[in-house]
């Protein structure tokens, strides 16, 4: 131990963004949305108050999955789609760690879809950051499971035929306990969502709209352009009525068949306006919120935490089973080997 550099554990809580920047040259395309997300994460991590050595980032494969190399935490750049499984094994066997998954829309929803939904239902203690650029970046621009139907790409010259996933609807349908959406370019909002995710026990899925300026540039312009964003982005604030627009002229109310719709704020009695409650045990409103936006154009997209409810995490449950099993002391190897039914020869 003599020559260990203990600096980072010595002052665990007083870290800065700089402390999380690795010496590796960042290799995304100039202008890639990943840069903004990296910067936001690096400046958020000190907030955790966790020493670097107790944080671990696991990623799959994709441009987004290069993420761990650029952090000074422990990390693994694994194989395509499998990060949630690997992270599950790590989190379950090491409840003392803060385990994060970085993945893309192809990595998480195409090849890795099954691991994602199972992590969500199990509620393993993972924070999953899904960089959704609605395209396969690293392989140079094929459509992804979140690409709009009819998308023309290298592999679909006449337009894609697949109807896209709505990642948040899928997650809620898969029993997720924490589901949120944010945008690469909105540093403040992104950080705020990371904060809430980090405070959640269990699996937190954070979809981050990320611009791939090379293969799908402007995919989220509707939600980013100053001219349009106020009317297109629906920010969700806990316990606040869902009102948006430059002058708060739009609001969200319920339809008579259980879904939600957007109407002029002045056209309804204020009590009709839905008050956002991500903690409500029932999935109905969270699911309805996930359906509000147009799957093709993203017209009127809610951002923020849609759902954040409590359910014991898989790791905690396993931990307590181990403790119960060991209440009468831990196992006696010799006794186990010998078993009940032996005979002796001498």
């Amino acid at each position, binding site marked *: 131990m003599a020559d260990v550099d203990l600096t980072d554990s010595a002052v665990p809580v007083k870290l800065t963004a700089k402390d999380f920047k690795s010496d590796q040259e960042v290799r995304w395309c100039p202008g890639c949305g990943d840069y903004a997300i990296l910067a936001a994460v690096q400046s958020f991590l000190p907030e955790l108050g966790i020493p670097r050595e107790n944080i671990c980032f696991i990623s799959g494969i994709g441009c987004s999955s290069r993420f761990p190399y650029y952090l000074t935490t422990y990390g693994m750049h694994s194989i395509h789609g499998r990060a949630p499984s690997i992270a599950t094994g790590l989190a379950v066997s090491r409840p003392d*760690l803060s385990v994060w998954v970085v993945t893309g829309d192809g990595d998480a929803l195409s090849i890795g879809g099954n691991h994602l939904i199972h992590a969500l239902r199990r509620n393993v203690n993972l924070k999953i950051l899904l960089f959704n650029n609605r395209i396969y970046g690293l392989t140079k621009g094929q459509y992804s499971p979140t690409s709009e139907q009819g998308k023309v790409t290298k592999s679909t010259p006449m337009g894609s035929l697949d109807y896209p996933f709505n990642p948040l609807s899928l997650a809620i349908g898969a029993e997720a306990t924490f589901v949120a959406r944010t945008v690469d370019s909105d540093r403040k909002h992104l950080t705020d969502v990371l904060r809430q995710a980090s405070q959640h026990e269990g699996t937190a899925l954070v979809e981050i709209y990320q611009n791939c300026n090379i293969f799908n540039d402007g995919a989220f312009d509707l939600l980013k352009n100053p001219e349009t964003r106020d009317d297109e982005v629906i920010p969700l604030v806990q316990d606040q009525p869902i009102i948006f627009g430059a002058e708060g002229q739009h609001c969200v109310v319920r339809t008579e068949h259980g879904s939600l719709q957007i109407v002029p704020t002045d056209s309804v009695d204020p009590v009709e306006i839905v008050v956002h409650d991500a903690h409500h045990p029932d999935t109905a409103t969270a699911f309805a919120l996930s359906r509000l936006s147009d799957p093709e154009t993203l017209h009127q997209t809610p951002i923020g935490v849609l759902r954040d409810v409590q359910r014991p995490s898989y790791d905690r449950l396993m931990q307590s089973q181990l403790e119960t099993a060991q209440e009468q002391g831990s196992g006696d190897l010799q006794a186990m080997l010998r078993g009940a*039914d032996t005979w002796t020869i001498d």
Partner: protein
Amino acid sequence: MAKQTVQVDKVIIRFAGDSGDGMQLTGDRFTSSTASFGNDLSTLPDFPAEIRAPAGTLPGVSAFQLHFADHEIMTPGDAPNVLVAMNPAALKANLGQLPRGADIIVNTDEFTKRNLTKVGYDTNPIEDDSLESWNVHPVALTSLTVESLKEFDITKKEAERAKNMFALGLLSWLYGRPTEGTETFLKEKFGKKPEILAANLKALKDGWNFGETTEDFSIRYEVKPAPLNAGTYRNINGNLALAYGLIAAAHQTKLPLFLGSYPITPASDILHELSKHKDFGVRTFQAEDEIAGIGAALGAAYGGSLAITTTSGPGVALKSEAIGLAVALELPLIIIDVQRGGPSTGLPTKTEQADLLQAMYGRNGEAPVPIVAPQSPADNFNAALEAARIATTYRTPVFLLSDGYLANGSEPWRVPEVSELPDLTVTFTDSHNWTAEDGTTEFMPFARDPETLARPWAVPGTPGLEHRIGGIEKADVTGHISYDPDNHDFMVRTRQAKVDGIASTIADLTVDDPSGEATTLVIGWGSTFGPIGAAVKLIRNRGGKVAQAHLRHLNPMPANTGEVLKQYDHVIVPEMNLGQLALLLRGKYLVDAIGFNKVRGLPFKAEELAEVIATYVDTNNANEGSSNG
């Protein structure tokens, strides 16, 4: 009336009946009393592939074969001396393997017209003369049992179900087996159902008494205990021995055990067993599929667990990509493949050795993985410890290749003292391992131990050693991503050299050749050890000279393997595949190794192997006039 007792040196009994008849249990009980009686033994269960095929049909037959003797034996035996057939299907399914003159105990109650036609008997074989070359003992097992239990307040069905205990009692009498063990067992099993318990105990006793009283059984057989080495013994099957080996390995490495697995026949029981031992801090994770199973194990390995993933052939295929990642990450991981009949779904409940080359080469790129294989059911325990030693010492995934026979077969096992177990203590890297010219120190995730070429194992939570690993080629020492051509060539060769280097820590290949004059070597791996050993004994008993060697390590092989092979005129490689080890031996050592291959889903029979070997040994010993012409 007094009965004569005949001394025999060994007996092979086959219990066969409907899946519902409890033959596996009967066999297990008979086995454990035989074990505690002190015989050497070897068993082979034979399950139907369906959960419950329709009653009385051939696919529904479930059998259990037990070979026990007053001397050391190595296989469950070629051909039974006694067949217990609980119904016509059981008789028909097994008669073929029954040598003339063997005893057949049939449950006549089940030989009804309906049951007979179900399996295509036009006439009742017990009544016609078709069985005349065997000793048939017709016993009305069902009705006798029902009769003996009539005073109990249980249903007819429940009474009938006790017929296997009646049969067990009869067989226990016939071979003078103690029944106490079974009585205690029943007491535990039916503790909550006193009436059922009493009934079963009575059926057991009456079965014994029936043997004593009936005319039909005039002779009792006695098989004296075998002279095993001193020690405390238990009977154990392969999957259990493997699970125990893994728990012991965790204990010896001082690492927490983590299993990531997805159920699959015949490996599931390892998951089942390990899930019972949470008191050892064992974490078992039933994943959504095999890929998630190994993925979770890899994550746990990164976190510092002794990580295991268990499966069978189809699961290994699915894990291929992740195994490649484990090779690139250089993390310890034990991959257990309990081989079954293939290709594809193949024959899930049958045994085979056809995954050797998949284990060697079933990944993209140059991705060497060490391979160890147990040679008998109980040997799974040692193989597990060895796999753990290699994985943790060399920071590499390791294959352990068991198979359906090794998994379900059982044999007496001398229970080791924990103090005898090898010390496998693992120490994680917790400090800088690299000093620059300027004397400053650093942590280099790919700076290797010059001895083993192993890279450091620094687990999350260790301050100052934060690092990133991944599946893209890494630069030597620093572990940074590197596309440099020479670095890639170097890393590819270094990973290979690391695995090859393991050979320096494994025992030389030893040859068993009492005569020292054999010119033919029979070499195998895995579960063929028993049959080959038995066959070699047969040859020697017949005056032939033959050498035997068996490989525990398939990759790397012992350093002296080549020399050994070159000493013989003939090298015979019996395998339950089309010649996979043979290909490796030929390719590596350029010796004309001749495969003897059967892919029947069953272990070799000693006799069939002996015949093949004899064709070579004869020619060698011709002028010595050996007795086996």
